[in-house]
């Protein structure tokens, strides 16, 4: 036993040195290309390999299920029940038509009208369009992460071994690497922007600040192993414009900012975020608000307008949904950013949830847990489409303009276009919508006579 001691320290030393060397080499190989914006294509190869493994895994699970003669649980993205897209009027008329032979154009009340509301209500209990947008999307095939598995009783031994290997790779190799990269990226950002901040205002400062920002975002992108495909880059936002995009997670910012220069908008936080924010604003003008100022809509609008009117300032990046949605749909855009009158550059971001779901369910996970989950996924794969710029037409108001932009983004990204407010994640729906339904129904039973007495 005592003979092992000198060998022990030797082995430990060798191990320590080799790990350090390995890590440094890796860091260099990743950071240096990030600085120059070059890519070796390693991540694409990684992605293809993973895809093949996932397909194999799915086949094994299906085989396992067939052996036991059970149907496999497959999630359906398009809803689980058949819903007819008819309006209130049409439905009620149909019910009445089958019930009586009376003339249908006289407005009146029938006992059978209740069937419409009853069925609609039960339909929404079984499957509604809104609440499912606030939880992570379900995957069709398993991606070797225990967090997304619904059919665990069919996993064979080989699959379990593969999964265990995956856990080892993700937690012991990828996670420390990514954390190290993230750390490097953030500290470089803070120090770089502070240093640039000491320079006198001018072209040199602008140039350096842009590149410092870009470089650090690129490092952060590699820290998450994000594999991003940019489309239509000729439509990238220009100075004096506003860039709007659909919001799925805080990572959206990093993804967009690593391909262009933006001015950020947001609330000043305390802690690490606050340090980063204060450093960034030294190098180039971002729009940060104090917590008290956020409620004052006029103040917000005024500062944003001032920013876009100055053509030397970078385009503003805004997420009009106001909260994170799970990337299967686009919800109501808040009209504030569309009232300013600047050119709007829409951007559609669509994540591929197979390699790692980027959606931040803020009611379930805090920021740190979320980042940990991100860093222990396989990768973050997404596509970014830059859409052609839009301006507000004279005959439309801010809300219509916002809806037009929203539809364009939804169409490009293949997302469902919803009119519901993302704020419904936390708040109750406004009574105005119920009143609309009641009004529609009232017309059906008493008609449109305006001269009838109303109490």
């Amino acid at each position, binding site marked *: 036993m005592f003979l092992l001691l000198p060998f022990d320290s030797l082995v430990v030393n060798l191990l320590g040195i080799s790990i350090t060397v390995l890590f440094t080499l890796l860091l260099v190989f990743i950071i240096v290309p990030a600085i120059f914006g070059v890519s070796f294509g390693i991540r694409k190869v990684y992605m293809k390999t993973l895809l093949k493994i996932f397909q194999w895994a799915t086949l094994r699970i299906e085989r396992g299920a067939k052996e036991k003669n059970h149907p496999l*649980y497959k999630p*359906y993205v398009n809803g689980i029940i*058949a819903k007819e897209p008819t309006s209130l009027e049409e439905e009620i008329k149909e019910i009445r038509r089958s019930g009586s032979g009376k003339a249908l154009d006289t407005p009146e009340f029938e006992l059978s009208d209740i069937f419409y509301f009853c069925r609609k209500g*039960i339909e929404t209990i079984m499957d509604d*369009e*809104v*609440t499912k947008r606030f939880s992570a999307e379900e995957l069709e095939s398993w991606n070797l992460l225990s967090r997304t598995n619904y059919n665990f009783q069919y996993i064979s031994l080989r699959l379990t071994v593969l999964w265990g290997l995956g856990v080892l790779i993700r937690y012991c190799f990828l996670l420390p690497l990514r954390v190290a990269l993230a750390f490097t990226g953030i500290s470089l950002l803070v120090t770089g922007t502070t240093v640039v901040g000491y320079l006198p205002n001018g072209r040199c400062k602008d140039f350096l600040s842009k590149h410092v920002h870009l470089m650090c975002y690129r490092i952060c992108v590699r820290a998450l192993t994000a594999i991003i495909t940019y489309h239509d880059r000729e439509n990238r936002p220009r100075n004096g414009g506003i860039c709007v995009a659909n919001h799925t997670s805080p990572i959206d910012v990093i993804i967009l900012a690593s391909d262009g220069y933006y001015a950020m908008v947001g609330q000043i936080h305390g802690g690490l975020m606050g340090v980063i924010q204060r450093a960034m604003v030294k190098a180039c003008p971002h729009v940060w608000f104090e917590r008290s100022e956020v409620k004052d809509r006029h103040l917000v609008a005024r500062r944003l307008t001032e920013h876009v009117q100055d053509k030397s300032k970078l385009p503003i990046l805004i997420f009009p949904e106001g909260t994170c949605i799970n990337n299967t749909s686009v919800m109501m855009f808040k009209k504030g950013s569309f009232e300013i009158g600047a050119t709007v550059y829409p951007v559609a971001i669509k994540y591929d949830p197979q390699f790692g779901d980027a959606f931040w369910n803020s009611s379930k996970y805090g920021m740190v847990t979320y980042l940990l989950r991100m860093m222990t996924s396989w990768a973050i794969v997404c596509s970014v489409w830059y859409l052609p710029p839009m301006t507000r037409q004279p005959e439309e108001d801010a809300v219509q303009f916002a809806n037009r932009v929203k539809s364009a983004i939804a169409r490009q990204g293949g997302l469902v276009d919803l009119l519901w407010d993302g704020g419904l994640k936390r708040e109750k729906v406004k009574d105005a919508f119920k009143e609309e339904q*009641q*009004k529609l129904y009232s017309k059906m039973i008493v008609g449109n006579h305006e001269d009838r007495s*109303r109490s």
Partner: protein
Amino acid sequence: VSHSQITRLYSRFTSLDKGENGTLSREDFQRIPELAINPLGDRIINAFFPEGEDQVNFRGFMRTLAHFRPIEDNEKSKDQNGPEPLNSRSNKLHFAFRLYDLDKDDKISRDELLQVLRMMVGVNISDEQLGSIADRTIQEADQDGDSAISFAEFVKVLEKVDVEQKMSIRFLH
């Protein structure tokens, strides 16, 4: 109901159950925006909760939803002596009847009808107009002259309505 349909509904049940205690409360239902804007939303939610209780478990959830299963052709010729399935025409009508009949005395009185009407039209119609609509409806349906609609009278009024289709929800496979 097939195995996968039950799994799907269970998955839905758990996603609505924010408290994660295996039962749903009224608040859990009210969190669904499309249900909250339904004028009869509260009545429908009530239908899930048995008398005097505030929580419904998965079994109760499924029992209530079972009323809306489409009627299969091969079921019609089934065992006539057994208990009636929950999704029979009669039980579907009974479900709707219970939405009107708040005090569960098996009669829809004028007041109960007025209450439901008021829920459905909001503030858009005056009390007098609503009253006359209720009176006319009761007059047309009432056959035994008690100024209320019993279940049998209810069924008679709706005998031609395609209840099977209008009160059924199909699953996508």
